[in-house]
C-alpha cells in the first residue's frame, strides 16, 4: 500500500485551477517564508537548508547545501536556476513552472538571500511558451509586490531575476552548457576541471546552478525548518519528491511522494496513483529515472523510491521520471527511439558520443525495421563498451559531459533482459509487433 501521509511541499496548491495567480498565492501563505528568511541572518537561512539535507532535484542528486557552501565566500556570484527540463518523460518542472510560478520566484529569492547574490537567472526551456508567460508574470507580480527588486520588503536586500528562454537543445540541461547558452553561445558543455560552475561559471564568475524543484522546496523549508524536512524520507533521501509517471499506466501524471516510503509497485499500481497497467496487461519493464537510466524488470518493482535504494540496483532515480512498458510494448523500438534521441541531441564535441550514438542508432534502426543480423547484438554491446568502458553503473566517463555515457543504458538493458526479442526481430527481418 502506498504511503500518502506526507505533506505536499511543492505541490500544495494543485487543487486550485488558479494556482498560478498572485491572488491565490498570497491567499495560501505566499511570501511568508521570504519575510521570515529576510528577518534571519543569511548564514542562518543557509544553515537551515543545509540541515534539510536536500539533494538536488535535477538528476545528479548533489546536496544543495554543499553546492552553496562553496559560493558563500565569493565576492561576485550568480544564481542560475535550471528549468530546461528535457530528459525524456520528465515533466515535473513543467508542472512547477506553469502551476506554481510564484513559489519558484519566492524560492529563488530565498536562495539568493542565503547566498547574498543580487542577480539570478531562471533558464526556462523555450518550448514552454505558457510557462514563460506565467513565470514572467510571476516575476512582474513580485516586483509590483515589493518581493523582488531593490530593498525587498524593506530588508536592504536587493535581487533581480531574469527569465531566460532556451531554444530547444537537450544538452542545455547540463549546467555548463546552460551557462554557455546563457552567455549567448552554442550549448557546448565545458570541461571540468577547471570549469566547475562554483569556481568558474557564468561570465567566469562563481555560480550556483540549481534545479527548479530544488528551489521550489525553499519556502517550505524556511517556514517549517530543515529538521522537519529531513524527518521525511529515509537515509540520504530526505523530504518529498515529484515523480513523473508515464507510459502504459492508467493514470499518468506528476505525484508528490515522500522519499523511500513508497516503491515502484506503489506508484505504478496503487489506485490513488498510477492505477495499474492500461487494459490490465502485464508490465514488461520500466525505466526508473529518465532515459539515461538502466531499465528495471518486474522483479525490481519492490525497490523503494530512494536514491541509494535505486543506485544499489545499478540504476538511478535520476530526474524522478518513471516510464512503464507493458507486455505489448516493443523493447527494441523503445531502445532504438531513445538512441535516436541521444544521436540527435549529441552536441558533437566528443567522438565517442557524436560517432557512437549515430552508429548505434543505425544498427538499432535496421534491427527494428528490417536488415538486422544476429552478430549485431555483439556489435551493439562492443560499441556501447567503447562509449562507456566496462558497461558498469555509474558509467565510466569518456566524454566531456555525461550525455555520452548515458547512451548505452537502454541498449545494454534491452539486450541483457530481452535478448530473445532481438533474436525475434532478426528472424522476422523487422519488428514482429508491426
Amino acid at each position, binding site marked *: 500500500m502506498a504511503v500518502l501521509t506526507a505533506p505536499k511541499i511543492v505541490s500544495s496548491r494543485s487543487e486550485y485551477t488558479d494556482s498560478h495567480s498572485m491572488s491565490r498565492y498570497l491567499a495560501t501563505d505566499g511570501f511568508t517564508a521570504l519575510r521570515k528568511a529576510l528577518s534571519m541572518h543569511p548564514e542562518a537561512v543557509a544553515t537551515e537548508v543545509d540541515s534539510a539535507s536536500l539533494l538536488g532535484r535535477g538528476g545528479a542528486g548533489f546536496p544543495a547545501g554543499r553546492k552553496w557552501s562553496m559560493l558563500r565566500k565569493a565576492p561576485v556570484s550568480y544564481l542560475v536556476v535550471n528549468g530546461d527540463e528535457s530528459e*525524456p518523460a520528465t515533466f515535473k518542472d513543467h508542472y512547477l513552472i506553469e502551476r506554481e510560478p510564484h513559489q519558484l520566484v519566492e524560492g529563488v529569492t530565498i536562495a539568493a538571500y542565503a547566498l547574498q547574490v543580487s542577480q539570478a537567472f531562471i533558464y526556462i526551456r523555450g518550448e514552454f511558451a505558457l510557462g514563460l508567460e506565467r513565470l514572467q508574470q510571476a516575476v*512582474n507580480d513580485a516586483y509590483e509586490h515589493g518581493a523582488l527588486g531593490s530593498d525587498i520588503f524593506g530588508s536592504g536586500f536587493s535581487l*533581480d531575476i531574469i527569465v531566460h528562454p532556451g531554444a530547444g537543445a537537450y544538452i542545455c540541461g547540463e549546467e555548463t552548457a546552460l551557462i554557455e547558452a546563457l552567455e549567448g*553561445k552554442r550549448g557546448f558543455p565545458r570541461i571540468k576541471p577547471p570549469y566547475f560552475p562554483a569556481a568558474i561559471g557564468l561570465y567566469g564568475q562563481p555560480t550556483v546552478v540549481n534545479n527548479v524543484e530544488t528551489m521550489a522546496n525553499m519556502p517550505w523549508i524556511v517556514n517549517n525548518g530543515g529538521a522537519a524536512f529531513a524527518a521525511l524520507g529515509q537515509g540520504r533521501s530526505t523530504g518529498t519528491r515529484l515523480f513523473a509517471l508515464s507510459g502504459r499506466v492508467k493514470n499518468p501524471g506528476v505525484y508528490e511522494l515522500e522519499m523511500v516510503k513508497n516503491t515502484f509497485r506503489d506508484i505504478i499500481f496503487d489506485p490513488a496513483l498510477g492505477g495499474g497497467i492500461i487494459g490490465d496487461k502485464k508490465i514488461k519493464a520500466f525505466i526508473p529515472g529518465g532515459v539515461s537510466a538502466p531499465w528495471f524488470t518486474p522483479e525490481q518493482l519492490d525497490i523503494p523510491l530512494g536514491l541509494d535504494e535505486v543506485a544499489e540496483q545499478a540504476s538511478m532515480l535520476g530526474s524522478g521520471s518513471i516510464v512503464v512498458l507493458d507486455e505489448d510494448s516493443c523493447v527494441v523500438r523503445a531502445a532504438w527511439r531513445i538512441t535516436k534521441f541521444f544521436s540527435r541531441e549529441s552536441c558533437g564535441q566528443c567522438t565517442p558520443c557524436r560517432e557512437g550514438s549515430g552508429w548505434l542508432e543505425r544498427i538499432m534502426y535496421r534491427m527494428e525495421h528490417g536488415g538486422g543480423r544476429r552478430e549485431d547484438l555483439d556489435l551493439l554491446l562492443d560499441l556501447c563498451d567503447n562509449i562507456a568502458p566496462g558497461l558498469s553503473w555509474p558509467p565510466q566517463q569518456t566524454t566531456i559531459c555525461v550525455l555520452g555515457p548515458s547512451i548505452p543504458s537502454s541498449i545494454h538493458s534491452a539486450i541483457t533482459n530481452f535478448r530473445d526479442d532481438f533474436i525475434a526481430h532478426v528472424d522476422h527481418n523487422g519488428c514482429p509487433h508491426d
Partner: protein
Amino acid sequence: MSYLRPDIRQRADELVALYPQKRSAMLPLLHLAQEQDGYLTDEGMAEVAELTGTSPAEVRGTASFYDMFHLEPVGKYVVGVCTNIACLLSGGEELLEHATKTLGCAVGGTSADGLFTLEETECLADCSVVPVVQVNHRFVRTTTPDALDALISDLRNGRRDDEIPPHGTLIRVRRNGGLRAPRAQVAAEREAAQTAREARAAKETK
C-alpha cells in the same frame, strides 16, 4: 534604419539592457527576430549581431545549434508531434504518420498552401497527455487522428488564432517590472553587506 519592426526593436533594446553582458540576449533576440518573420532571415540575424556585439557568422553559428530556430521559411503554424519514449508507447509514430497524410507533406516539410510545417519533436515534457502535439509551441492536448484533423481544420479557418499566436514564444512575455535601483547601487549595497559579514566573521574567530 532598423530591419526589426519598431515594437520588436524596442523589446530587443530592453532585453540587451537587461543582461550584464549584451551577448547574453542572443537567444531571446533570435526568438524575437523569428517572431517577426517566421524564420531567421539574413537581415534579422545581422541586426541581432549588431545588437549583441557579435558577427552575423557567430549569430548563424549559434542559431543553427538550436532546434527551435528556423533558418528557412516555415508555415504560419509549426505543428510538432512527439515520438519520444512516452509518446512512442502510445501511438506517437502513428499520429505523426497520420499528420503527413492530412497535411500532404513529409516530416520537416511544409504543406502546399504554405500554412503548416510538420516536425517530429523530441520529448516536450507533457507526458501525461500522449502523444503530445504542439502548435507554435502551445500544447494543444490533441491525441487522436480525428482530433488532429479537427485541429488542423480549425487552424486553417483561423478559429484558434486567439489561443495560438504566430510562431514563437516571446511575443506575449513582457517584463514590466525591474530592479528599481541602478545596478551600481545594488553592487555597492552588496559589497557593504559582504564587508559587514566579514567583519562579523573576523570578530567571531577572535
